[in-house]
């Protein structure tokens, strides 16, 4: 992991002066930079502000006022409707269950697979590794055309187990990340443990797993982002009422609340809030783990 090394030597352009550019041009450049950044932020914020304002309006207020008008009075009823009648609450609960099980499952199976595949050089492990490499190419969503029949045959259709098992069983990226990380952990550690009489499962448990902690963090961040935001798996495999996740609960708003945008907006806001809290509380952690997760592709 080169991150730590480079962090200390992060480039700070402020130390350097642009010798040949006159001051006026420099100031102009500096101003232009801020203009670009502010404009980019406005592009991000404007669609969101409209949603926030709209979610606070009553239905009549929403219809009669413009998109950027402040609400006549703060109305929190929309949030209640979206949360309870709109099943966003159930969606959050189901998403949390799915997240917990699939994160746990991925870490257990992913680290075990990576350990065996990376450390034991046998015909069988090489074969498994090759299949994983090829499987990474398969188009995820299109594959559901034939995955569906397997899920159906196993009796998992329309249960919470369907997305959980798919998130665990088809997560090749995580195995990749673990394998890449293990490449950098010296085998001599395993060997000295074996000389001390450790069995292989013991080596995995006492040496490999603790060493993999940074990789597990990366996988957890990627898992959270992808599962919390995933739509098609739940949409395809859990159509029943009561089995909504955040995405499908919101998606179902389009029908019954199609003309009540203030409620749709409230739903959108509720579903963004957990992401926002997590983002604000561990911004650096998310950045560094997403970067180290993707460089491994």
């Amino acid at each position: 992991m080169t991150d730590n090394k480079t962090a200390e030597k992060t480039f700070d352009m402020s130390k350097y002066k642009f010798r040949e550019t006159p001051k006026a041009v420099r100031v102009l450049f500096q101003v232009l930079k801020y203009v670009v950044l502010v404009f980019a932020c406005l592009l991000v914020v404007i669609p969101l502000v409209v949603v926030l304002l709209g979610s606070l309006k009553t239905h009549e207020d929403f219809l009669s006022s413009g998109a950027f008008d402040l609400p006549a009075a703060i109305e929190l009823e929309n949030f209640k409707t979206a949360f309870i009648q709109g099943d966003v609450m159930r969606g959050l609960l189901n998403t949390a269950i799915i997240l917990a099980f699939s994160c746990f499952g991925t870490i257990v199976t992913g680290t075990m697979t990576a350990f065996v595949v990376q450390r034991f050089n046998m015909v069988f492990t090489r074969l498994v590794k090759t299949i994983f490499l090829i499987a990474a190419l398969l188009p995820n969503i299109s594959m559901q055309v034939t995955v569906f029949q397997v899920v159906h045959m196993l009796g998992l259709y329309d249960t919470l187990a369907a997305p959980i098992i798919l998130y665990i069983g088809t997560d090749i990226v995580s195995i990749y990340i673990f394998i890449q990380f293990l490449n950098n952990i010296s085998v001599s550690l395993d060997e000295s443990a074996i000389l001390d009489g450790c069995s292989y499962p013991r080596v995995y448990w006492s040496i490999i797993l603790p060493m993999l902690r940074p990789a597990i963090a990366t996988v957890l961040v990627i898992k959270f982002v992808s599962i919390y935001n995933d739509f098609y798996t739940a949409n395809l495999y859990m159509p029943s009422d009561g089995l909504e996740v955040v995405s499908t609960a919101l998606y179902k708003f389009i029908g019954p609340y199609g003309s009540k945008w203030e409620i749709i907006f409230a739903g959108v806001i509720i579903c963004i809030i957990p992401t926002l809290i997590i983002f604000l509380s561990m911004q650096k952690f998310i950045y560094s783990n997403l970067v180290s997760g993707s460089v491994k592709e």
Partner: protein
Amino acid sequence: MANVSAPAVKKRTLGQWLRGYTGQKYMTTILFLAIPVALLVLFTVIPAINMFIFSFQQRDQLGVNVQWVGFDNYKTLFTDMSYLQTLLNSIYYFVGSFIQLGLALFIAVILCSKIKLAGVFKGFIFFPYLMNGVAVALIFQRFFRGDDGGTLNTIISLFGADPVKWLSNTSINNWCLVFASVWRYIGFDILMFIGAIQSISPDIYEAADLDGANAWQRFWHIIFPSIRTIIALQLILAIKGAASVFEIPYIITGGKMGTSTFVIKTIETGFQYQKIGLASAMAIVLLGIIIVITIIQKIFFKEEK
């Protein structure tokens, strides 16, 4: 490791062998890989093989009345305009991701220069990447709404323009969806580029500074060459992404009015019209495209190293 078990090479009972390190290796492999391999076979290998076989068949979801039709499914895909059109629509997203990469590089370079509140700007621009896809789609459904209640129409009306039907006008609706897609994903590219730019050794800048390099020379001769690899990688990922667009058009327009993509069409064909054979053929075609791009990637990056 071989040294450890070497003294016990002589005849051993099965129990002894299992306790030795070679036996343990096999046992551990079986124990650790049983579940992952079972899942791999069930949810990846079998569906992939089925996909290939089904692509030469005419069949429904239940698998009754299966007929072998040879290459007919593939023929349909490449002759029927309604399928080809969805494949062509990915060009919009490819152009979009090209622009996205350019903008991301531009913003990343700005954020790495002397800027106050750089972290705040970065946070704002990055946040959409973490947002729920359905939420993003709903936000943009409202943003591009065709009547005067739409956000964009409200903005342009400030400048005296008449409302535009953004999503039902077939000459602009795909670009609107591309915009939503760029809005959502650009933060990730920026993050990658910032990481790459910051990993350039400060010594190089110092040397350039001594030589009196200006900002543009600094970018063109130092930053750009150092992060060329990551740009190329992001570009390849962008092509794969453009070929597999699904969520944003599926939710915003439902793939109607000429905004369908190849994956939306695949899912529709498979689940709505129950034409599993044809849908499998589409999946195989997409797989083919991805394999070709991956091979190009491998060749390209071998040269780089």
